[in-house]
């Protein structure tokens, strides 16, 4: 425990001129420093694989999406942003989503869907900007969500890297 020091102001500290010059000496120094202002829309913040932007669906190299419409992301989503209607497919995986929508107005970019997906089908992209004229336009359907796997590859690698745990107990 330390008791914080409080001292009465001295006469010099109560006078106007010395104090105003002392204060200004600090603020004026800032004139000679490099400005730190970022001109936002022209100079966006840098993004990297750690950035959790809007979730996107992975399109595999054969052109199909990896999703099997298991509904795990729908269940894991705390904002109820995901809506999936599953259906049958002739492909070997048997099931695929007929409708896959993420309401970007509800999505809080938490990344729980990415964690929950057992098929590596949904990943957080580095896309952050979100604007439209209508609400309906911000409910993204499958076409708007699809991204080639190569575009999401840095994030996929990153998620695999932070998922490297418990290796001692693996034979």
């Amino acid at each position, binding site marked *: *425990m*330390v*008791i*914080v*020091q*409080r001292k009465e*102001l001295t006469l010099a*500290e*109560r006078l106007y001129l010395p*104090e105003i010059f*002392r*204060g200004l000496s*600090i*603020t004026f120094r800032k004139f000679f420093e490099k400005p*730190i202002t970022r001109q936002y829309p022209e100079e966006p*913040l840098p993004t990297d694989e*750690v*950035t*959790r932007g809007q979730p996107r669906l992975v399109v595999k190299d054969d052109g199909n999406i990896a999703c099997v419409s298991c509904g*795990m992301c729908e*269940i*894991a989503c*705390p*904002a109820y942003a995901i809506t999936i209607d599953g259906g049958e497919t002739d492909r070997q995986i048997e099931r695929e989503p007929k409708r896959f929508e993420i309401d970007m107005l509800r999505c*809080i*970019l*938490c*990344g*729980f869907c990415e*964690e*929950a997906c*057992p098929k*590596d089908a949904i990943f*957080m992209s580095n896309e952050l900007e979100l604007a439209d004229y209508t609400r309906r336009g911000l409910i993204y359907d499958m076409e708007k969500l699809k991204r080639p796997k190569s575009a999401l590859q840095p994030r996929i690698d990153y*998620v*695999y890297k*932070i*998922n*490297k*745990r*418990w290796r001692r*107990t*693996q034979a």
Partner: protein
Amino acid sequence: MSGAQSGPTLTRQVFEYTPGTRPELDHDDPLHGELLKLNMGPQHPATHGVLRLGVTLDGERIVDVDPDVGFLHRGKEKSCESLGWHKFFPHTDRLDYVQPLMNNIGYALALEKLGGIEVPPRAKVVRVLLMELSRIMAHLIYIGTLGIDLGAVTIFFYSFRQREELYKVVDAYTGHRMNNTYVRIGGVYADVDEKVAAMIEKFLADFPAALDEIDAMLTRNRIWYDRNRGIGVISKEDAVAMSLTGPTLRGSGVNWDLRRAQPYSGYEEYDFDVPVGSVGDCYDRYLVRMTEMREAAKIAKQALDKLKTVKGDVLIEDRRYVLPPKDLVHSSMEELIFQFKVVTDMRLPRGEAYHGIESSKGELGFLVASDGTSKPLRCHIRAPGLMNIQALPMLAKGRLFSDMVSLIGSMDFVMGEVDR
């Protein structure tokens, strides 16, 4: 209440009207001696959110204050009960939104106590590091907003500049600048890697000098001194009786810090001082918070050094609560079942647990009760800010209206947490 207040006694003329007579009107006083009821807020820049204060004024003097909370009520406790254990984490971010990671950790600690989960040592160190950085973040907001309320706009920019550096650190670690949601039951989601550690190291190296600058601008500044000293004196007894916690309590000279009194996350291994005040006024609370930031930087430095020696996982290996690693899910049927189980139906054992942490505002506690299912039976959040607001009427009575701003600022509450 203690007689710590020393304003002049109130002179109040009550306007009495008897029908048929014409009272003598004091034409200089437009209210003719009546009291004025003034609504401060809910949209007032100095009330730090949506707090409405019904202030009764006699001229410039405050006769009574009636805080009205609840404008930001979003039903967080009920959300927790309907969402389930894990899905409530993003909601904790939005309680005290200036220190999201601290709230995450508070909630996780309560759940871990309920489940009897022991967090790996490295996760504990990472958590301490995150908590102390969050504390600095929150106190910087306090300094900045109190500064802007009392007319020191420069301080707002200086403190937000430091906060921006912390945002960058947190962004590099979690991928978000705010509302991070990076703590999980049984640890934290990702490890602090070298790049992030280097950023924190750099921040901690520059921070004391930046704090000195703020210190030089404020602590001995006459306006700051006069507007904070002797205002809102809380005696030790009152502070304890009103169940104040955190810097507000310590400003009154009570040496009570949960990091010392009930250590969690391995705080007993760190070397730090708990600053306490001697008088209990706004100035003491300011000094306590300034010192606390320096101490927090010290603890963060120690945690950073510890990270170099304490190795291992940052998430517990317990497939009842923690998702299995991604690649194993692809190759093993059991892991896939665990994945489904944890996402859809993660249960905590039947029982009840309370865990309080020393957040930047005071004791932030989560009381969770479970009936053994995947949804909490009850989740209660003990918000330190709510108690701080309760002290306002006692402190404001008899003071000038302009002191109200210092008082609100020095109690340092965030309405997201108070109304929850």
